[in-house]
């Protein structure tokens, strides 16, 4: 009976996720189709001229590249496109004339790489800081962290990135200002390449991390303070447990629970910020390609990337939902 209920809950979650993705995808499809100018006609013309074929043939080629027939009415186009989407085809880049999948295959790993490390760092350090200042209320650390958090909250992420770029890349020249790795090196599991990758990723990671540490610290501080007031902390002290132990296993493990739900949310927000930060650092992740698509009115790519971003975030939320019960036994539905 319990297991049945758990499964029902899960089915509902997955359905909701799928529904979300579908709705977002559909809305973006409709929006893009409103875009002014008939790109397909231009493309067909170009192809017809370049390859010396008739407009109809050219159009057929455009149609096969794009995944749907641009001349058919909206609903038909939509259904064709949806079928392609369900097969995993994220669409067609109007500028590059290749499938979006090919672009994202190159770009997505970089974004995920930088975001994951940044999230881990900012969360890890932030949570530790938050815990420390929750316990030591009168130290110098508390006002410093709070001021830092206010300052980074006031500074949009792209400004943080800009400042880092100006200071460390352009003035001090300690870090490169563009690219994911030194183009002279050959990609592979060799040390120079890995070092170069890390070197290039440092400033973007730093931009995200510096921006978010303050928020995590303050959130954890709040959570830890409320846990500290709980009876079981006093009881643990009454039993003669060491303060250190109480801090990690009693305060820490309980205070961190509300933070975990924030992780998936933060991941989503960072995807949004990736457009700005990767642009500032010329870092070839999906954010950068999104900006590139914007500049060249490549709606196909924008649409594909937006859908991909949505999928990634929805997946992250699902995973967080899956992981959370493992941490908080009160939420588990065991049979």
């Amino acid at each position: 009976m319990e297991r049945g209920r758990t499964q029902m809950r899960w089915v509902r979650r997955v359905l909701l996720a799928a529904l979300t993705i579908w709705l977002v995808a559909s809305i973006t499809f409709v929006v893009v189709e409103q875009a002014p100018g008939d790109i397909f006609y231009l493309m067909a013309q170009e192809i017809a001229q370049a390859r010396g074929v008739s407009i109809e043939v050219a159009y057929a080629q455009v149609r096969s590249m794009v995944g749907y027939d641009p001349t058919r009415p909206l609903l038909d186009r939509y259904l064709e496109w949806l079928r392609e989407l369900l097969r995993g085809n994220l669409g067609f880049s109007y500028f590059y004339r290749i499938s979006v999948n090919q672009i994202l295959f190159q770009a997505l790993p970089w974004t995920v790489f930088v975001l994951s490390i940044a999230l881990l760092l900012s969360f890890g350090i932030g949570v530790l800081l938050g815990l420390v200042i929750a316990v030591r209320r009168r130290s110098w650390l508390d006002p410093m962290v709070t001021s830092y958090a206010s300052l980074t909250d006031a500074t949009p992420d792209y400004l943080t990135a800009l400042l880092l770029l100006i200071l460390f890349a352009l003035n001090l020249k300690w870090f490169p200002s563009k690219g994911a790795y030194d183009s002279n090196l050959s990609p592979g599991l060799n040390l120079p390449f890995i070092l170069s990758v890390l070197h290039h990723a440092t400033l973007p990671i730093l931009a995200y991390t510096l921006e978010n540490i303050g928020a995590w610290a303050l959130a954890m501080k709040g959570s830890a303070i409320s846990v500290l007031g709980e009876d079981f902390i006093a009881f643990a002290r009454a039993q003669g447990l060491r303060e250190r132990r109480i801090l990690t296993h009693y305060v820490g493990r309980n205070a961190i629970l509300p933070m975990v739900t924030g992780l998936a949310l933060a991941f989503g927000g960072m995807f949004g910020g990736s457009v700005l930060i990767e642009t500032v650092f010329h870092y070839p992740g999906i954010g950068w390609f999104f900006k590139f698509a914007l500049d060249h009115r490549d709606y196909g790519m924008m649409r594909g990337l937006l859908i991909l971003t949505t999928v990634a975030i929805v997946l992250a939320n699902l995973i967080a939902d899956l992981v959370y019960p493992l941490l908080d036994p009160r939420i588990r539905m065991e049979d």
Partner: protein
Amino acid sequence: MKPLVQVRDLRVTFDLGRHGRLIAVDGVSFDLAQGEFVALVGESGSGKSTTALALIRLVPPPGFISGGRLLWWGDSKGEPVDLLQLSEAQMRERRWRDIAMVFQGAQNALNPVMRIAEQMMETVRAHQAMPRDEILDRAARCLRMVRLEPSRVLRAYPHELSGGMRQRVLIAMSLLMSPRLLILDEPTTALDVITQAHILEILREIQEQLGLTMLLLTHDLAVVAKTARRVLIMYAGQIVEEAPTVTLFESPYHPYTRGLLQAVPTLRGDLTGKRPIPGAPPDLRHPPPGCRFHPRCPYADEMCRRVEPELEDVGSRRVACHHWRRVAQEAPSQKL
């Protein structure tokens, strides 16, 4: 009877910043003999919980122990140890090993993310290294003493147990290190009457079997009647009366005690003549002059308003009232 703990002139102050200072425990002295079952009775705000917390030096800030001595005779040396003179590290060692305290409100006293077995292991390991199996054995024994089934309870998380079960787990945990003194703060509040009776039974059993010294804090005189052999009545941070239970119930010498007894209806007795004590406990930032109970006392006179009564020895009891003789004569006895 040999004393286990001697509390002398204990004073606990709360520093409330611009709201002033509050003396929650004002010169409290009492003895706890080895193997005794003593009840400390008072309304909320009387200072009884603070007194208990002071015994293990865990008064929460902004409170602090501002005076007195806590003489501990349990070390079986010639001289007692003043617990207030020990360093924090030394005190930490003694907590639970010598004195264990079960808090009020079992709902939140256990860590929600740890299984009971884990928490009991934490308790033991904080005091001595012991192999896991031994600890679990000991834990199982303690759980059986409170009539809980170890195989079921050890695996569980706190939220999977009922309120009564959690309370019993707390008691079991308090027995893990075989302490000399067990303090229980309102162990039966927020539990239904049947569970209450159950727990009190268990407490009596444990005390008899293990020869522990028990200090039970409560506001409920019915609980006192069923468990304690001696009662301490606390009001506004001071002890106002102390007597063997039977003697106290039969004839209270302090007006407050009398008021408490009159406020409690019995199952058989009629409700006429039952009334709560008028008024409310005083604000301890500005306690009333003289006897602290005088604003609510039917016997109060000019002397009561000016002179604070001392705790006098009268036979087997102590009482702090200028007019205890009158009270003793006039109060009808309350049969248990």
